[in-house]
Structure formats: structure tokens, C-alpha cells
């Protein structure tokens, strides 16, 4: 009945995360607060992917484009035109949604791999443009972004931003949950699995795909804005190919269509490199090797639900298995 069921263990994980955040806000180290904030913001983008790809089945790699609009929008409007940061974020959000509307209809007509190709092109093109253009200050990026304030309360205090970031993440998760368990979520799942049948059932496939894209664009734009508001800096590196790929890794590691997956995935991709930093020269290798292990052993992700698990035996190629007497 519900496409976005929350399992008990996921509730436990969510509670644990809430506790960790609270502890960090009250007395955690700067690094811990920084990490948790970044995790929340990336998780928000991954939640948007969970809607776009997890529900509606659209493998779009272009969330970084909307993050970039959110980030650069805030930066340029606030620093170059002196616009209030909150207003700038709102304008950037409107721009992202507008872009999604304009390119959405033609883009979402593309099937499977072609959609992936198109969106990869869009994402990498955005990063290249940000790097090359003087409008975005090229490779130098933009600094000196004013901090967010509400009245007298300034979010310059990292702990306050931590709460803000997790509020965004929490709201996104709520939206994910509400939409997923509604008839809209069902329509998405239907069109993702059998687009042809969905059409004969009267579902306006194009409309629903676009709806998913608009929601995803909005979430990504906000997350992108908040990220830049937090670090007070924006540059093309924030949206380059490694970020594009990392987002997919986060989604995958956490588990598609899992409630807590985006947060777990984001934590993994952000924290593991720090954990293996001790390997120095070999740290990148260690990171990717670990990732490979996850892909091969838990192909549905850590919290994913797969039909058929990832038993190690299935890793063996047929000829090797037969050598060991497995009649496969």
C-alpha cells in the first residue's frame, strides 16, 4: 500500500541521528558540526534523487545544475547586487524551477540511457561553464557571501546552521514520505515500471515526470543555496564530475527508496574519505575499493530492499563455481 514504508530499524537510525545532531549542536567539535551540516545538505539532494529516480525512475544526473543555480544565485545576487540573502535564495529557487519547467518536457521524453547522457551533459556543462565564464568569476569562485540572519539571530553560529540544515533535510524527508505514500507515489512507481500500461490507465506520464523533476529541482536548489550560505563560498569545484558521481554513490549506498538511505549514503561518502585519510597515498584507493565492495556485496545498498541478496558465492564467475562443484 505504501511505497515509502518506514521500517522500525530506520526509525531507530533516524532517532540516533537526531540525538547525534543535538549532542553536536550543544557541545560538539567544529569538525563534527561541519560534517553533520554537510551531510544534511547532501542528504537533501539525495532525497530529491530518491524521488526522481527512486519513485519516478528517471535517472537524471543533473541535480548539480540546480544546486549550482541555488549556490551561484545566492552568491551573485547577494554579493554583486546586495540583495538580502533570503530573497536571493528564493529567487534562485524560482530560477531553478523555471529551468526545470523549460528543459523538463523535452528532456524527460528521452529514454533510459539517453536521459542519463543528456543530464550528464547538462551537469558537466554547467560545471565547465561556471569554470570558464567571467560571470561566475571562473575558477576563482565567489567569496564574501553574507551570512543568513533572521532579525537579530545570525546563522553564523555553526550550531544554528546545523539546525537549519537538518530542518531542510527533515522537511524534504517528510515531503518524500507524504508524496511516496499517496496516489502520486503510486503513479510514479507505475510509470517507472510500465510506462506504456500507465498511459493506458489514463496517467499523464509526461506531467508526472515533470512534477518529480520540479520537486527535485526545488530541493536541490535550496540545498545548494544553504551549502553556499554555510561555507560562505562558491566555486565550480562544488559541482564538478566527482560531485555528480558522489551523489549517485550516496543514493546507491544508502539504498534506493529507503527512507533513511540518503542520510546513511551521504554519511558514508562524506565520512569514509576522512576515515581512510590515514592511508595517505592510498586513501583514494581505499575509498574506491570499499565502494566496490559495497556494490558487489550489497547491490541494493545498505538499507535497500532487494529481491535476492548479495551472497558472496554469486560473485564467482560461472566457470569458477562449476570448478567447485556448483552445477550452475
Amino acid at each position, binding site marked *: 500500500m505504501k511505497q515509502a514504508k518506514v521500517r522500525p530499524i530506520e526509525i531507530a537510525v533516524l532517532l540516533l541521528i537526531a540525538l547525534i545532531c543535538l549532542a553536536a549542536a550543544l557541545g560538539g567539535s567544529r569538525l563534527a558540526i561541519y560534517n553533520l551540516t554537510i551531510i544534511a545538505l547532501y542528504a537533501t539532494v539525495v532525497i530529491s534523487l530518491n524521488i526522481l529516480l527512486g519513485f519516478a525512475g528517471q535517472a537524471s544526473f543533473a541535480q548539480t545544475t540546480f544546486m549550482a543555480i541555488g549556490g551561484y544565485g545566492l552568491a551573485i545576487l547577494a554579493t554583486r547586487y546586495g540583495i538580502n540573502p533570503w530573497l536571493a535564495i528564493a529567487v534562485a529557487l524560482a530560477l531553478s524551477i523555471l529551468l526545470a519547467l523549460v528543459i523538463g518536457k523535452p528532456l524527460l521524453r528521452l529514454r533510459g540511457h539517453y536521459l542519463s547522457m543528456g543530464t550528464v551533459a547538462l551537469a558537466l556543462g554547467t560545471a565547465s561553464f561556471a569554470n*570558464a565564464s567571467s560571470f561566475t568569476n571562473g575558477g576563482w569562485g565567489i567569496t564574501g557571501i553574507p551570512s543568513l540572519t533572521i532579525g537579530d539571530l545570525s546563522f553564523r553560529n555553526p550550531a544554528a546552521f546545523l539546525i537549519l540544515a537538518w530542518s531542510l533535510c527533515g522537511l524534504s524527508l517528510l515531503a518524500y514520505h507524504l508524496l511516496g505514500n499517496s496516489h502520486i507515489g503510486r503513479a510514479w512507481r507505475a510509470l517507472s515500471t510500465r510506462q506504456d500500461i500507465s498511459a493506458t490507465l489514463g496517467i499523464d506520464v509526461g506531467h508526472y515526470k515533470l512534477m518529480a523533476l520540479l520537486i527535485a529541482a526545488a530541493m536541490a536548489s535550496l540545498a545548494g543555496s544553504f551549502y553556499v550560505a554555510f561555507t560562505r563560498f562558491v566555486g565550480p569545484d562544488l559541482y564538478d564530475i566527482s560531485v555528480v558521481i558522489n551523489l549517485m554513490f550516496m543514493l546507491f549506498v544508502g539504498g534506493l527508496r529507503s527512507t533513511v538511505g540518503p542520510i546513511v549514503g551521504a554519511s558514508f561518502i562524506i565520512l569514509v574519505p576522512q576515515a581512510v585519510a590515514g592511508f595517505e597515498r592510498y586513501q583514494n584507493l581505499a575509498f*574506491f575499493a570499499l565502494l*566496490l565492495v559495497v*556494490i558487489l556485496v550489497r547491490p541494493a545498498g545498505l538499507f535497500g530492499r532487494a529481491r535476492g541478496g548479495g551472497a558472496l558465492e554469486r560473485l564467482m564467475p560461472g566457470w569458477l563455481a562449476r570448478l567447485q562443484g556448483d552445477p550452475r
Partner: protein
Amino acid sequence: MLLILAIGLATGCVYALVAVGYSLEYRTTGVVNFSEGNYVMVGGFSTYWFLRYTQLPYPLAILAGILVATLCGIVLWTFIVLPLWRRRSPPYVVLLGTIVFGAILSILALLLLGPMPQTLPAWLPGFVIHLGDSRIDGQYLVVIVVTLLLMVLIGLVLQYTSLGRSMRACAASRDTSELLGISPERMGLISFAATAAISGLAGALITPAQFTSSDVGLSYGVFGFVAAVLGGFGTMRGALVGGLLLGLVNVLVARYISSNYQAVIAFAMLLLLLAVRPQGITGKHWEEAEA
């Protein structure tokens, strides 16, 4: 001017060979292998290693380099793609697997051979073309000629040998070809190995004219991919057309605008193409691009 043409066509040939790799693998197995460009790096870099650290004569070092690239392709297939394929993992998981593999190759190259770009000796030493005022490194011509010969060879193999027919059958329908006694897994292995070899050869070809380093794989992979789609994803002819076109565009952009804009322009072209004519320039689309 002619130099620009030579560079453009030569790098275009490398893109074309990478694009052929994407197309061949995709049609045989349905997998898009994003580590395709890394084999170019592996081919060039290992050839360099063999030349530098062993007593092998140059031609054998090239062969050894290609062999290493082929081995990488086999490893990718056997230990990553095949297990995921068997479990019918969703396409984007396999894609991620190939990306991770490519990243690992790149890192290994960095660790084993260091960050310095390296080059190789020209295939035909002293071969320089004088045309009018221009002095063009003959290696560029070697690249173009070998690429064209290779593409003809590939075309002949696909068309006239039983192996080629099996691959084409697999590309047409995995289930039907299984009924015909063709093993899709074996075809997958062969196509992954062959395309790795082709890209490895491309690496050995282009390195004498330009440099190679551990991170060129990404660039070739991305541009090769764009070339494949531009020409018509999944077709041999498309790979060649797309590759040469992109090679020329890239070198012109670098010369007259700035090399920073190469990627932007390439992607803009790609987006425009997908909006207007998703089946590519040659229009021979392998499958329906639009739902």
C-alpha cells in the same frame, strides 16, 4: 592551419575509437562502460612502463601495453559487470561499478607511475610532413591511418566472421541468441576485452604525439562518450563521424576561444543534439531514443 587540422583529426580518431568501444559494449551487453577512456591511459602508460623498465623492443612494448589494457577490460567484466549483470542489477548500479573501476585504474596509475606526464617515441622516427610552410608531426598521420584501417578491420570482422555475426546477434537480442547457442556472457567478455584492446592501442598511438598521464582517462572517456552520442550511439559509423567532428571542434575551440570552453561547447552540442535529433548525426539509431 594544417597543423590544427592534423591535431583535430588525430584526437578525433582517439575519440572515435573510444566511441566504438562504448557502442560495441553497449550493443552486446546493454552496459554503458564509463571506464572506457581509462584504457587509453592504461595503453599509453603501460607501454611507457615496458619501454622504460624492461628490455622489450618498442613494437613489443606496445603490444604488451595493449595486453595490459585488455587484461583490465577482462577484469572489469569478470569481477564487476558480470556478477551485477547476472543479478539483473539496475543499469545505474552497473554504471557506477564501471565508474569506480575507472577511478581505481586512474589511482593505480598515479601510484605506480607517478604524477608526471610521459610520452612515447614516435612510431616512425623522423617522420615529419612538410606541406607548404607547415611542419606536421608524422605521428598524427599514423594515428589517422591506423584508426581508419582498424575501423575497416572491425567492420569486416563484424560483417563476415562467425564471431562478428554472433556479436551482432547478441546485440539484436540477448534472449534469442541464447537460444541459438550463443553465450551472451562469452560475447560480453569478448567485447569488453576487445574494446579495451582497441582503446589501449589508441593510447599507444596518440601518446607519442601528445602526453599521457594518470588523469587523461576521464577526458577521453567523456569526450569519447559525447562523440558516440553525437554520431549516433551504438553505431560504428556514428562513432567515426562523431569522433572526428568532436576532435575538430575541440581543437578549434582551443585555438580560437580557450581550452576552458572545450567541455562547455562539447556539452552544449550534445544537449542541442539530444533535443533536436537524439539518434545522432548519422541518424542511424540503434534503438528508439525517445519513449
